[in-house]
């Protein structure tokens, strides 16, 4: 345990040299690297901070824009709702009007259908009534009734209004003039043009035929021949065809006229 001066001095020198070596080759380079890395990290952190600030700013802008969009959306929604409401109301009004018109039309159609049905029923009833009456009258009709009807016809011919008589006479005159310029034997609807076709349900005796012909000649100015036909369908009475005119005094035509009268009204 001695203090060696050489060792003492050499140790001092050695340590100072070691301090220089380590300072030059160890501490300084290592600290420089640490400092560089720290600077890099600080730089990165600064950039990250800047990026974060930018991101926050962008986020804020985005949120503001979202809020604006939300407001705009709500506004547009309200406008759209209002427009839709108006449109709906208009459509409802139109629809209501259409429905009303349709209902009215339907009502009219139903009314018409009812009227038509009613008419049909009435007509059917009348036809059935006529058929019934015809059937009934067919069974009770006879030559006596026909005689009475002939007498009635003769009486009616005498009592025809003057205007109607004039028209009948005019028709007979025209047909007569036409016949004089054409062939006398020409026939219209199975009878000669200036002839009077008398249809009866029962055979007419000569007296009745003379009375009829006389009444026709006097009142209607019939100048042609008289053609007699027999048709049991008319039940009883007569039907006289003179050109386009038909003079009917028979049960069948009366019943048909009754049905037709109802139909006309």
């Amino acid at each position, binding site marked *: 345990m001695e203090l060696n001066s050489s060792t003492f001095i*050499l140790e001092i020198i050695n340590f100072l040299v070691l301090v220089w070596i380590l300072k030059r080759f160890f501490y300084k380079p290592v600290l420089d690297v640490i400092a560089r890395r720290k600077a890099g990290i600080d730089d990165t952190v600064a950039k990250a901070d800047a990026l974060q600030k930018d991101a926050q700013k962008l986020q804020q802008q985005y949120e503001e824009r979202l809020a604006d969009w939300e407001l705009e959306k709500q506004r547009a929604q309200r406008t759209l709702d209002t427009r839709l409401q108006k449109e709906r109301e208009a459509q409802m009004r139109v629809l209501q009007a259409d429905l009303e018109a349709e209902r009215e039309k339907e009502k009219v159609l139903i009314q018409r259908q009812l009227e038509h049905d009613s008419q049909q029923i009435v007509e059917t009833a009348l036809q059935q009534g006529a058929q019934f009456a015809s059937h009934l009258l067919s069974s009770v009709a006879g030559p006596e009734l026909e005689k009475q009807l002939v007498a009635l016809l003769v009486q009616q011919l005498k009592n025809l209004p003057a205007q109607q008589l004039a028209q009948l006479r005019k028709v007979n005159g025209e047909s007569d003039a036409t016949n004089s310029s054409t062939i006398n034997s020409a026939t219209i609807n199975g009878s000669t043009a200036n002839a009077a076709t008398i249809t009866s349900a029962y055979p007419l005796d000569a007296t009745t035929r003379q009375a009829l012909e006389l009444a026709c000649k006097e009142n209607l100015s019939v100048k042609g021949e008289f053609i007699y036909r027999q048709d049991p369908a008319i039940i009883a009475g007569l039907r006289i065809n003179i050109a386009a005119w038909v003079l009917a005094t028979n049960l069948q035509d009366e019943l048909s006229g009754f049905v037709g009268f109802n139909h006309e009204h």
Partner: protein
Amino acid sequence: MNNEGIDASLLFQIGPVEITNTVLTTWVIMALCAVVAGLISRSLTLQPGPVQTMAEGIVSTIEAAIKQVAPEHTRQLLPFIGTLWLFLVIANLSGLLPGVHSPTRDLSATAALAILVFFSTHWFGIRTQGLNNYLHHYLRPSPIMLPFHIISEITRTIALAVRLFGNMMSLEMTALLILLVAGFLAPIPILMLHIIEALVQAYIFGMLALIFVAGGIQSQQISQQKQQDKNSKEIS
């Protein structure tokens, strides 16, 4: 037991300069440190590998320790204090190698280090405060304290040297004695204690040196003064 096993042995002599195994071991340690430092400094990158990470960890730890005591003079004190720690750790642990004597079990080496601490305390103090201010602190708080300050400077330097020398020498002597008495493998627990003691003594020596130097440059006071100035500026 002779002094051959304990005292540093003279290896050769260059004129009046005696080269002992303490000096030789120190040179080996220096060479080792220089080579390792050179290799590390050559391969330093911003993406550190394991070796560089270890080196940076050592430097950062030393820097942090110095910063705790002398926050304003960390970079200034780092080479000296850091070298003290590294050298002492390596030197203390070198005694574990068979045939190698730790330089720190030689009083000449520990005394040299203690003297370096003594002078560096004054050197850093004068550099930082100027000669007058530095010398004035021996008169504070009262000139009566001057002799005590001087005695304190001397005794703490001697204590520094003797503490390290005594601990390391006693460890090696204990290991040697146990080896002589108990035989092979018996001193292993003592060697493990040697490792701990080597690290602790290196830490104590370096920390005391740091405290002495920091006391010399009044680092804590300067730091407090700066803090007060900063606070007063903020208040105003």
